[in-house]
């Protein structure tokens, strides 16, 4: 029955078909491959179950109809165009939005434009008093890496529990707690050389660059604390190493105790007073370059969004 229908439907409507002489009489067998082996298998199983020929024909017709529906659906899916990325159109931001985005980017750039030491004036005590050569600067860097982000995350976690109360005490004690394993680790790394840091090593637990966040009233998430802690650590370490190496070079003419100059050009650089002066000069140069870059970016935004007042 199915073959009969297929044979009828396969003939073109108004076009006679010549039958070849050698063509076999039961040509409907060539149409059978249109039914998939799965359909045939299903019909065979139905016959084996002792169903009547009518039932077998009915099930076979249903299976063929399902297959036909699937084959019709498949080309439709194939024809349907794949989802393509939307063409990149220029963002329709207003000038105010673009300027706000630029300001946010500047604020988030803790390495250069909003460096915690050179721009915000944090962490000055250990840098001025202790980072007088490369070795001490390296110790301070390691301490900052181990202490800053962990303190910030622990303090934020505790503040979530305490409802953001007693922030200064929570931050200071978090740093003091983190300091215990950090000190043990640093002692294993640096040994007795750690004693040259004097009071400035334990004093780092209340250094504003470590616990500055205690002054902010809004409570950040732990993930955000991690991200900002890493950013601050990178900016702090860059500043510490820059100042430490430069002071050693100027004071002793060496870099990590390797002779570079025959004589120290500015012995005062090893003292806190020299540290203040040198840090002030570096901060001035840092600020000048940073301000020039910010000015350039602001002019760029102004030109790009000149036609958009709002």
């Amino acid at each position, binding site marked *: 029955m199915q073959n009969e229908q297929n044979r009828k439907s396969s003939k073109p409507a108004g076009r006679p078909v010549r039958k070849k002489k050698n063509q076999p009489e039961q040509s409907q067998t060539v149409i059978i491959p249109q039914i998939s082996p799965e359909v045939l298998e299903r019909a065979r199983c139905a016959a084996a179950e002792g169903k009547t020929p009518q039932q077998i024909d009915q099930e076979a017709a249903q299976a063929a109809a399902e297959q036909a529906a699937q084959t019709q659906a498949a080309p439709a899916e194939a024809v349907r165009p794949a989802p393509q990325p939307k063409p990149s159109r220029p963002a329709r931001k207003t000038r105010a939005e673009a300027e706000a985005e630029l300001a946010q980017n500047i604020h988030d750039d803790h390495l250069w434009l909003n460096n915690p030491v050179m721009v915000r004036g944090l962490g000055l005590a250990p840098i001025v008093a202790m980072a007088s050569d490369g070795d001490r600067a390296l110790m301070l860097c390691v301490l900052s890496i181990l202490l800053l982000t962990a303190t910030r995350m622990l303090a934020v976690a505790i503040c979530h529990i305490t409802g953001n109360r007693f922030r200064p005490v929570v931050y200071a004690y978090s740093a003091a707690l983190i300091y*215990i394993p950090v000190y043990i680790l640093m002692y294993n790394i640096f040994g007795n050389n750690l004693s040259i840091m004097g009071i400035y090593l334990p004093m780092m637990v*209340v250094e504003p660059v470590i616990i500055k966040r205690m002054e902010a009233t809004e409570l950040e998430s732990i993930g955000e604390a991690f991200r900002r802690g890493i950013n601050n650590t990178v900016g702090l370490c860059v500043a510490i190493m820059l100042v430490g190496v430069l002071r050693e070079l100027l004071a002793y003419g060496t870099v990590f105790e390797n002779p570079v100059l025959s004589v120290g050009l500015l012995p005062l650089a090893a003292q806190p007073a020299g540290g*203040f002066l040198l840090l002030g000069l570096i901060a001035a140069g840092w600020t000048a370059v940073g301000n020039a870059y910010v000015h350039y970016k602001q002019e760029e935004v102004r030109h790009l969004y000149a036609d958009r007042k709002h």
Partner: protein
Amino acid sequence: MLTASTDLTVFQGVAQFISYAILAIFAENVVFSRAMGVSRLIKLVGDPDVRTWQYCTPVILVQLLSAPLGWACMVYVSPVVRDALPEWLPLAALRPILYLTCAVIAMGVVWLLLAFLPAAHRAACREQLPLATCTCSVLGTLLLCANQNYDLLQSTAFGFGSGVGYLFAVLVVDEGRRRLGSKDVPAIFRGLPSSLIYIGILSLAIYGLVGHGVAR
């Protein structure tokens, strides 16, 4: 009845107190000699919302009251803790938490003492009290007194002098910052750079009193 030797002892004690306080105010100023608390100082002098006395009154009181506690911690608590600690845990790892606890206890006492101030001043000082406690000048002074093995009188005098010295530094830097706001100062030096250079020059002047080395 007081004897001559008792009078001399009292006089020596007062003289020692004054000498150590003056030493801490000028010769070993926490800001100019050791750069302790300088980050907070620069923020404080640039903050129009916080007046100098609002921040420095709690600093002086906390330093004065925490110094004897720090001495007691060094003399009585530290040996006990050292004996109780396991071998792998050095006492130096616990120094911040011990001396921070001294400062926090002093903060609690100062919070109560501030009740004697008029209501308007009391609220302002109490607002700054936690920030004044968790600062490098307070913890640094406690650690320094312990490192120097100061006795009770010397520790108290040095703590009081450090607090007054911090006030002195704030007043000097505040005045200098006001003058450094002039248009004659190049734009790149305004703000933090000029403040640092100004403090550096003042610090250089301190060297005329104590020489180039400072105790750590």
